[in-house]
């Protein structure tokens, strides 16, 4: 190709009008703000701060502070519980990320009979009580009650009262989170850049790794953080599928409940404090990611 061809001067930059939020002034606005602040304070801030405060407070004559808190958290039962929670959450998030991205692509990029039904089905874990989910898993996979009980017994594979069951229950309750983040982004960006990549010679796999995945990257990360937060905090479904005894399927949330009921409140508050810290961390990550998301365009 020879000399460059002179190009027209560029105009046509799209001007996006800054979105303006109408700022309201007047007595009503202040009343509304006060109501919201009070509501959040009494419902969220105060109770959570009490937990944090109790975690550091002296209990039953023992001194408070960071040292005793650390001691309670490094108790072997607590270490086991957090270890189990992190293991379960890790696998649940990995499974939901892989399937979540796959299902999102299926929902957005393909038209097939039953697509709407599938979309509704994915929201089911959000609307069904986790306890019911736990119960359903027990009914299906336990060796005594389960539909495949005999098969499971024969293979020696334990699901219920074992880590696989906990992972399944946790994956179930956090199933929609990645999908609900990724689907809108896929819908918004459309299919053109993937098609363009294919016209340039990329096969489906290359188009996915080089084009689709970088495009939905922040949505996936956001979904992963939400899933992780949900998985770490899961209680109801886990309660049903786990034995929930010390060193035997006791996750962090079960530990809190067990210790609290055993009048060992100090240990319960300490573990609760860690869950609060993890939740705040997740919120910080999400807040840091949000602006980046809007920069993508």
């Amino acid at each position, binding site marked *: *190709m020879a000399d460059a061809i002179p190009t*027209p001067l560029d105009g046509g930059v799209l001007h996006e009008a800054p979105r303006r939020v109408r700022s309201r002034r007047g007595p009503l606005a202040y009343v509304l703000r006060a109501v919201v602040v009070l509501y959040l304070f009494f419902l969220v801030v105060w109770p959570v701060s009490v937990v944090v405060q109790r975690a550091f407070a002296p209990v039953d004559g023992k001194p408070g502070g960071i040292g005793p808190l650390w001691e309670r958290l490094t108790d072997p039962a607590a270490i086991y519980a957090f270890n189990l929670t992190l293991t379960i959450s890790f696998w649940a998030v990995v499974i939901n990320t892989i399937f979540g991205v796959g299902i999102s692509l299926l929902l957005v990029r393909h038209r097939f009979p039953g697509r709407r039904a599938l979309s509704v089905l994915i929201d089911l874990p959000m609307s069904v009580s986790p306890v019911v989910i736990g119960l359903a898993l027990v009914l299906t996979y336990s060796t005594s009650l389960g539909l495949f009980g005999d098969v499971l017994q024969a293979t020696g594979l334990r699901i219920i009262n074992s880590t696989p069951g906990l992972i399944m229950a946790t994956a179930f309750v956090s199933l929609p989170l990645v999908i609900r983040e990724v689907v809108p982004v896929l819908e918004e960006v459309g299919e053109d850049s993937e098609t363009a990549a294919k016209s*340039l010679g990329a096969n489906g796999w290359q188009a996915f790794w080089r084009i689709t995945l970088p*495009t939905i990257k922040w949505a996936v990360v956001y979904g992963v953080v939400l899933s992780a937060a949900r998985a770490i905090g899961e209680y109801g479904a886990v309660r049903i599928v786990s034995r929930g005894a010390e060193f035997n399927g006791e996750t962090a949330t079960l530990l809190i409940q067990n210790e609290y009921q055993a009048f060992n409140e100090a240990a319960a508050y300490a573990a609760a404090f860690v869950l609060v810290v993890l939740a705040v961390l997740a919120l910080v990550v999400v807040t840091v990611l949000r602006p980046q998301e809007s920069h993508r365009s």
Partner: protein
Amino acid sequence: MSIEIAGVNKFFGDFAALTDINLTIPTGQLTALLGPSGGGKSTLLRVIAGLEDADTGSVTIEGTDATAMPVQKRNVGFVFQHYAAFKHLSVRRNIAFGLEIRKRPKAEVNAKVDELLELVHLTAWADRKPAQLSGGQRQRMALARALAIEPSVLLLDEPFGALDAKVRKELRDWLRRLHDEVHVTTVFVTHDQEEALEVADEIVVINDGRIEQVGSPDELYDAPANDFVMGFLGDVTRLGGVLIRPHDIDVHTSAGAPGAVAGEVVRLNRVGFEVRLTVRTGDGEETAVVVTRADARATDVAVGSPVWLVPHRGATTVAPLPA
């Protein structure tokens, strides 16, 4: 012969998007697929690219039967209306994409990309992200990206449709000059007859999934095959039972010219340099006539004036299809 399309039919459900398309697109030319929205022209382009499969028929590109070939293998450059920029990659990496997929040596890729950046005048923007470019620049980037793989055909789907009028006009002049330089067989889809008439070597008019006419811009304008083609390429009115363009009618203020149709001016509208008249002729038909402002002043026509209308010498007229 670069692209041969034979017996192509395409249905979306019950809707016939393309009906019995037979078309030969010559090598090295700029061909426009022109027609109204929903007429099937974009579908035809996507069938050529391999983005849609035809239900029947065959597509041959440069002598190779491409009918069953996936888009990756057809070696076609495709440019989208909305640029389809790879937003996370720099302009340079966007253009290099096809070459990187083909695993060309780095030095070769860089040299080729530099050449293309210069060709589309984006050298200074090479390290920017697409979001930092204007619409016109993004489309030039998309064009360079498609040209990088040295395609046997370049396909453009409403390439300037998302740009504002001024940039659009500049870019299509630029495309014409680019094509004169690069000579790659190019097919572009447009619904804008002015764009097609101005840029293309050959125009294929498509309506309702059928090809209405194929020809050079002059052939189509001077000898439209039917009333649809005539109407799509410009304004049309009826005079004495035939279709004619409103600016091809002479207005006389006295009888006597042979073949003149008598009538009365019922509306008069001045728009810029032209004056648009509506004339009711004897048989109750209303004929639109466009004259220059100077002509209107010279003949002194006004609403209610009796006038005699005569087709201009050499005017194109077409008999309307029987309804």
